[in-house]
């Protein structure tokens, strides 16, 4: 019974924690600009992240190593410095986007300027990291994320033609704006397959002392949690396609995106949109800041655990304190949070091979995972998704920056 509850909690937290600033904004943009046509990108990304999360959990359960610690041990500190720096820079950008997302959620409800809420949002993130435990962060905040199920409710109330929705699961090219289509597809991949998720998931497994007997739980949590989670992203896309696209609204701001729930959910629409954005970003900000501290501490061989009090792992606590402050400064510089989010998500895809391919090597090494090495299919799925996303990003990111169509 205890194991079933643990499994359910794991699935629900993965599922409820799926929505954050990246997935919400990329799905909203995709639906408003291309209707259901980019649903395939969410499905593909969900498959990729489910497979990668399963691998990260398996590595942690069998080797008691996190992803960062295992890469450093296997490849050496010099090699590890490359994925470390890449992931650290991305973490700062994505954390800034998430803190911006919390501030935007408050702005939507209060009408006050975004910049007023950046420091309080960052402070709230820091306080919970300082005072909270891993379980509180993973379960408590993620459970609040169940509010994002409102998008699924909205879809049913809007009565889409399900055959049109299903057609979006097949990759097709648009008749216009090819570069934008590619850029949003890449951003969806980046929003879903974030490098921080791998190390965070593995660090969580180490914190919770997973072992070989948890492999089935790991498989179910990663597969069901990420799979169900992607349905919320798809619901955002479908709602946006049904409400905004017919009116010719292409989402360029959160004020526009926030209008998508109103026709289906009435006066609760705006409140639920803001709550989904705020809670999702808050949860993601906690995970990213924590992951940054995990990565640095594991690379340097320091004490690390969110379950220790700060004086027992002072350097670990200092790292998340500093990174939350730096990310807040990035948003306070006045950069547009939506543009920062989309750019961060696209850059994630460019950085992904640097982080993922060494990780794949470990999952094929019996010294780390014993007889539970990757299957050829598992390797091929990841190489194809990450490789194709990388090549596509190399083309569309410069095109989008240069203003291509």
């Amino acid at each position, binding site marked *: 019974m205890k194991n079933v509850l643990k499994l359910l909690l794991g699935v629900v937290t993965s599922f409820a924690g799926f929505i954050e600033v990246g997935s919400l904004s990329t799905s909203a943009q995709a639906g408003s600009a291309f*209707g259901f*046509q980019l649903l395939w990108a969410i499905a593909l990304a969900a498959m990729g992240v489910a497979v990668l999360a399963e691998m990260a959990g398996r590595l942690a359960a069998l080797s008691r190593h996190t992803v960062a610690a295992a890469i450093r041990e296997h490849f050496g500190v010099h090699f590890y410095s490359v994925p470390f720096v890449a992931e650290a820079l991305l973490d700062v950008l994505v954390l800034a986007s998430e803190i911006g997302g919390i501030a935007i959620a408050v*702005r*939507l*409800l*209060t*009408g006050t300027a975004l910049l007023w809420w950046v420091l309080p949002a960052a402070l709230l993130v820091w306080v919970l990291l300082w005072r909270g435990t891993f379980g509180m962060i993973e379960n408590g905040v993620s459970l609040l994320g169940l509010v994002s199920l409102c998008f699924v409710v909205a879809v049913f109330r809007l009565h889409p033609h399900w055959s049109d929705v299903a057609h979006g699961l097949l*990759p*097709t*090219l*648009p*008749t216009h704006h*090819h*570069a934008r289509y*590619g850029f949003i597809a890449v951003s969806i991949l980046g929003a879903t397959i974030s490098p921080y998720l791998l190390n965070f998931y593995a660090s969580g497994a180490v914190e919770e002392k997973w072992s070989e007997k948890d492999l089935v739980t790991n498989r179910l949590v990663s597969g069901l949690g990420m799979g169900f989670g992607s349905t919320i992203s798809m619901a955002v896309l479908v709602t946006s396609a049904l409400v*905004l696209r017919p*009116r*010719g*609204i*292409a989402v*360029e*701001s959160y*004020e*526009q995106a*926030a*209008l998508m729930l*109103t026709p289906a959910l*009435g*006066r609760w*629409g*705006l409140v639920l949109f803001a709550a989904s954005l705020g809670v999702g970003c808050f949860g993601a900000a906690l995970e990213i800041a924590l992951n940054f501290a995990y990565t640095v501490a594991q690379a340097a061989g320091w004490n690390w655990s969110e379950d220790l009090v700060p004086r027992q792992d002072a350097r670990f606590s200092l790292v998340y304190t500093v990174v939350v402050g730096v990310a807040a400064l990035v948003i306070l510089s006045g950069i547009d949070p939506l543009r920062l989010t989309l750019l961060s998500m696209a850059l994630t895809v460019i950085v992904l091979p640097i982080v993922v391919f060494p990780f794949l090597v470990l999952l094929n090494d019996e010294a780390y995972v014993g007889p539970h090495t990757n299957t050829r299919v598992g390797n091929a799925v990841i190489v194809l998704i990450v490789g194709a996303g990388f090549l*596509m990003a190399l*083309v*569309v990111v410069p*095109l989008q920056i*240069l*203003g*291509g*169509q």
Partner: protein
Amino acid sequence: MTGGPRRGPAAVAIALALSGCAPDPRRTIGDATEGALSWASSAHLAVEGWTDRRLSTRFTRAALERCQRGLEEERASLASAPDLADARVATAAREIAEMSALTAARGEAVEKEDPDAVARSAAALSASAARLREGPGA
């Protein structure tokens, strides 16, 4: 959607490679028109929600301010275009400037909670949007 969807990685690569970067007046106007109509439509949807009491005055005012800023950005993108001398570009820029002014007026009417003034500016904005849709970029 118009036309049948095309499939295949080669088509993707060719389409992406051919997605040119050199601006021409028609495309400059087309981009700005599309952007401006999207902002105008967002303003309509926000005001529709306010009229039906589904959106607060505070949010609607903020949304209209954002829409006006978006319209100003579209107008500025035309103003900075090298082909401003082209009469079609100048006409589109004037129309978008009018839409921006009407959106600002609409925001003020919402703030004063004056439904008649909101309806008047809505009609004027719709007319301006229709002129832009059928105008120089069409």
